[in-house]
């Protein structure tokens, strides 16, 4: 199980990656899985136990995202 963070734009995704790194939350940039969206954009993946911390870090920077639990 992984937590996926989905963004509407690359701008938001890169900004989010920077915010998560600043908050010392380990994450990876991955393509948005086809099972979730037909979009060709990028998503960020992190461990499920970092979900709340990730949400807090992004909220503090006013970065909108959708959290998705991926069971692949």
């Amino acid at each position: 199980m992984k937590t996926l963070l989905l963004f509407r734009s690359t701008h938001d995704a890169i900004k989010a990656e920077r915010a998560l790194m600043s908050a010392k939350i380990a994450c990876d940039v991955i393509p948005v899985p086809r099972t979730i969206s037909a979009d060709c954009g990028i998503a960020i993946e992190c461990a499920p136990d970092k979900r709340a911390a990730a949400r807090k870090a992004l909220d503090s920077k006013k970065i909108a995202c959708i959290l998705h639990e991926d069971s692949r």
Partner: protein
Amino acid sequence: MNTYFDNAATSFPKPPGVAAAMARYLNETGGPYGRSAYARAVAVSREIESVRADLASLLCISDPAHLVFTHNATHAINTVLSGLDLAGKRVLISPLEHNATARPLERLKRERGVVMDAMPHFADGMVDVQCLAASIPKDAAFAVVNHLSNVNGVIQPIAGIKHALGAIPLLVDAAQSAGHVRLDCEGWGVDFCAVTGHKGLLGPTGTGALYVRDPRALQPFITGGTGSRSDSAEMPDFAPDKFEAGTMNIAGIFGLGAAIRDRPAPRHSNADFPAFLEGICALKDIRLYHALDPAHQGLLVSISHARLDSAQASLFLNSRFGIETRAGLQCAPLAHRTLGTFPAGTVRIAPSIYHTPQEFEQLLGALSELSRQ
């Protein structure tokens, strides 16, 4: 001697990091922006967003998403003028507009019935803010102001103009001012600001940007792939994607980022250019076109000669001294009509931060010889 005094056309030299950053992208980094998630593509996306953030900071824009990359200031201005519904509306313009604004508006006048009015102004083209506040037509719907004239270097009082305009949306053409004058987009309260990367910012050609205060109020200039919402036939409705269809000038933006980060300190002081202008004023048979208020003078001016036309004068400087200047109308016939130099035009002298006081003195010596022709 640095003989290049045509920096208002395009700057030269560039900081050394510009070419290095562009070569790094072309030879080593490669990859697209915003299209994929492999390491190379993500590295490119990080750098593009980093440059966007740096440029937004320079323009006093708190949310970099409101700053979209364009090919140049002309592209940015056209994005605004074509993306608003101005049909049949009245547009106020400064008296020193460049063709980047005048031509799109002329087209809108012909095709969509747009009406253009010049703002009240002083003899040097500086907008008279008090008169403007007292004379704004009730049906004025939009305004455009060239921040720093590319003919005589007048810096317009944007904060005062915006205050006088009130709720009328304002587009600032900052093609010449970006890099030379502090741009305070949010402090001014302007709605749009167009900049180019290759002039005062010292970046490469083919780079520019547009500040859009409210992305919802503007339709995109071109449509196409953005790497987002790819399942939809419609453009994304959010910035920056809404205004960035197609692959951007990635190599150029890498260079622009280096230009911003590696910007050298000016090689002359704030007093050197005014002193140079005083020297020109003392020359017989040379007329100087400049800001009447020295506090509103940018780093460029124009001159005319009592006997030689602008092309002859520019050729003399080039053939005798190797000095490079721009003769003619400088793509700004409206400005020249305002200054009384249409259609003859002027010789424009546009230094850069690389020029030294000694080079101003050498140029003054050349102008002295020109005055005796």
